[in-house]
C-alpha cells in the first residue's frame, strides 16, 4: 500500500492518521521528532533555517529512507518563512536523490493538490473528514484533562500513562460514534487517577510557535516538566481551534482570530504572521484571567515571534505577570531548560505567597 508521510504534530498524529484513510494510503507519522530525524534534518538543512524546518526535513528524509513515496505538510500564504518550506524540503530531497513527493495543504484552489492527486470518492472522503475532526476535538479534550491532572497527580507519570491509554483507544476507534464514545471515557479515566488534593497548582500559559508547542522532543517535554513541578499548563495551540480559524468557523468564538485581534489591539495592531498575534492576545488574556505566568516558546530566529517579544515584555511589565522566554535550536540543552523552569516556578510560587 502507498504510504503518506505526515509532519509530527504531537498527539494530533492520531487524528491526522485518520484523515487520510479515504485516500487509500497508509499514514506514516510520528508523535514527535526523534534524535535521528533531527540529526538527518540538521545535516541537510541550511544552517540559518529555523528548528521546525530542520526537524521536518529530517522527518521526510527518514520517511523516504523507509520507502514512503508521498508526504504532506502545512504551507501557508503568510509572511512567515513557512510559505517556502514545502518547496525547500522538496528541493533538498530531490538533490539527495530521494523519491518522495511532498504535497502542500491549503490555500491552493478549492481542491488541494493532495486531493487532486489521489482523487478520493466524495462520500468516504467526507466521512473521513468527519472522523478526523472528531478525533481532533477528542485530542483537544484529552490534552486539557492531562494538563489539569498532571499538576496534582499523586504518583508521577500516572496522568501520562492514562493519556497514552486513551490515545491508543482513540486510534482504534473507527466511526464517529465510536470516537465520541471513546472521548466520553476520558473524564472518568482521569478522575480515577489518584491525586493529592492539598496541592494548589500554579497556572501557566504556553504561547508561541506551533511546532515547538506541540513537538515533545523539540520542546524537551515542556508540558511534562512543568506538570512535574506542580504547574497546570494551558497550551494555547489546540488544533481544533486552529482548524476553526483556518475554515473561518465561529467568528465570535473565544479563540477566533477576530476575537484575538480585538484583545491584542492595545498592544499589537497587525497580524504580523505565524502565531505572533495569538501569542500577544493569549498573554493578555492570561493576565486578565489571573494566570501565574506565561512561557513563550519559539525557535531561535523565528521571524514573527521574535518581532513581538518586546511587546510580551511590555505586557509583563504592565500587568506584573512574569514571562519566561525560551528559544530553542538543535543545541538547546535539556538540563539548562530544567534549571530555568525550576527557577521560574520558584519565582511564581514566591509571588503567589507574597500576594496571599
Amino acid at each position: 500500500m502507498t504510504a503518506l508521510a505526515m509532519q509530527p504534530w504531537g498527539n494530533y498524529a492520531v487524528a491526522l492518521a485518520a484523515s487520510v484513510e479515504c485516500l487509500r494510503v497508509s499514514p506514516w507519522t510520528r508523535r514527535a521528532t526523534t534524535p535521528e530525524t533531527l540529526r538527518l534534518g540538521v545535516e541537510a538543512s541550511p544552517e540559518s533555517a529555523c528548528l521546525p524546518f530542520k526537524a521536518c526535513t529530517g522527518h521526510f528524509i527518514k520517511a523516504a529512507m523507509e520507502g514512503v513515496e508521498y508526504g504532506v505538510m502545512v504551507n501557508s500564504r503568510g509572511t512567515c518563512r513557512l510559505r517556502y518550506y514545502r518547496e525547500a524540503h522538496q528541493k533538498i530531497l530531490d538533490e539527495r536523490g530521494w523519491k518522495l513527493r511532498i504535497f502542500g495543504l491549503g490555500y491552493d484552489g478549492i481542491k488541494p493538490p493532495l486531493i487532486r492527486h489521489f482523487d478520493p470518492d466524495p462520500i468516504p472522503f467526507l466521512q473521513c473528514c468527519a472522523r478526523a475532526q472528531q478525533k481532533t476535538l477528542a485530542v483537544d479534550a484529552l490534552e486539557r484533562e492531562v494538563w489539569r491532572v498532571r499538576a496534582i497527580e499523586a504518583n508521577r507519570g500516572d496522568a501520562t500513562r492514562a493519556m497514552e491509554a486513551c490515545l491508543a483507544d482513540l486510534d482504534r476507534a473507527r466511526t464517529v460514534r465510536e470516537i465520541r464514545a471513546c472521548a466520553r471515557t476520558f473524564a472518568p479515566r482521569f478522575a480515577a487517577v489518584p491525586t493529592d488534593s492539598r496541592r494548589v497548582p500554579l497556572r501557566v500559559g504556553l504561547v508561541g510557535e506551533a511546532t515547538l508547542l506541540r513537538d515533545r522532543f523539540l520542546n524537551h517535554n515542556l508540558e511534562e516538566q512543568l506538570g512535574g513541578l506542580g504547574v497546570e499548563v494551558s497550551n494555547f495551540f489546540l488544533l481544533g481551534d486552529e482548524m476553526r480559524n483556518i475554515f473561518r468557523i465561529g467568528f465570535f468564538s473565544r479563540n477566533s482570530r477576530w476575537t484575538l485581534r480585538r484583545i491584542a489591539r492595545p498592544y499589537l495592531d497587525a497580524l504580523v504572521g505565524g502565531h505572533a498575534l495569538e501569542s500577544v492576545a493569549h498573554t493578555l488574556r492570561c493576565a486578565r484571567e489571573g494566570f501565574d505566568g506565561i512561557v513563550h516558546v519559539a525557535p531561535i530566529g523565528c521571524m514573527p515571534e521574535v518581532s513581538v517579544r518586546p511587546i510580551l515584555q511590555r505586557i509583563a511589565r504592565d500587568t506584573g505577570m512574569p514571562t519566561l522566554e525560551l528559544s530553542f535550536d538543535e543545541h538547546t540543552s535539556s538540563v539548562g531548560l530544567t534549571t530555568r523552569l525550576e527557577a521560574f516556578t520558584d519565582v511564581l510560587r514566591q509571588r503567589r505567597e507574597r500576594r496571599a
Partner: protein
Amino acid sequence: MWNIGTRWLRGRTGGAAGFAASSQEPIGLPLALYAYLHPGLWQAFFEGLGCPVVLSGSTDAAMLERVGLVSETEHCLPAKLLDAHMDALIGRVGRVFVPRILSLKRGYIACPKFGALPDAARARFGDRLAVLSVELDENREPLRTSLVRFARALGASGPAARTASERALAAWADACADDEKETAGAGRRYLLAGHPYLVNEPWFSEPVVRGLTRLGARVERMRFDRAPAPDGPLRWDTSAIMRDTLADLDARRYAGVIQLSSFGCGCDSIAERHFREAARERGLPYMLLRLDEHAGEAGMRTRLEAFVDTIGSRLP
C-alpha cells in the same frame, strides 16, 4: 457613510491624534532599517508639513554598543539598530516616526518584522517617546495615497497634504537618482547585493566597498527602483527584487556578485539559495558575506582578497 467606514477601517494612523496642535514640535527620524527603504522621503514629508525633523545620526561604534543594551537579542542587526537609533533620540525629541510596512510592491509582502515595528517601538520606548505611525501596504493602496491619508490624519488640509506628499515622493526619487551607485576606477565591476538597509547603510557597506576599491575593483550598489517579475519564486518584496536583479545581470558587465546578509536574517535564510542559483545561471561568481555586530574587518578583507584574486586568475 461608506467612505467614513472605509476610512475608519483603513485609517490606521496610530498616534497621529494631537499632531496638529503640536506640529511645531520636532519629530525624530531614526536612520536605520525602514529609512533605507524610502531614502529622503520621510524627512521631506514632515518638513513639507512644516514640522522640524531631528535625525538620529549615523551608525557608529557607540551606536552598536547601545544595540546590546536596548534591543531584542534575536533580531537581525538592522532591526536592532533601529532600536539603538530610537534610543539615541530620547531626550532630543518627544516623538519619533516608525511606519508599519506591510508591502512595498503590489503583489508582494514585506518581511514580517516590519509588521510589528511601531507596536514593538511603543512597547519598548512608549514611556519616553510618542510613536507616530502609518500603515504602508501597496496591496491595499499606493504609497501616494497612504502619504496623503497620513498627512490628512496629521491635520493638514487637502492641498497641503497633496503638496507634502508630492514633495516627499520627488525627494525620494532624487535621493535614488543622486545616489553614488558606482565607485570610480577602471578595474572589474562587482555588484554589491543585499537588502537596502545593508547595501546603503555606510556602516555595513563602506568596509566592503573600501576593501574592493583597494584591490582595484569597481563596486556598484544594487538598486531597488524596479518592480519584481510577477511570477518569481519569492514573495518578500526586497528579496524578490534582489533575485530578479541577479537573474537579469549581464555577465559581461560584472566580474562577480558580493551579497551582504545580516546574521539572523530570516528572509535570506530562504532566499540565499535562489540568489546563488540566479548568479550561477548567469555564470557569475557569488560570495555571501554575513555580518553581525561582532564582525571584524580582517576576516572580511581576507575573503574579499581571495574572491577577487580567484576571479582575476580565472578571467582573461
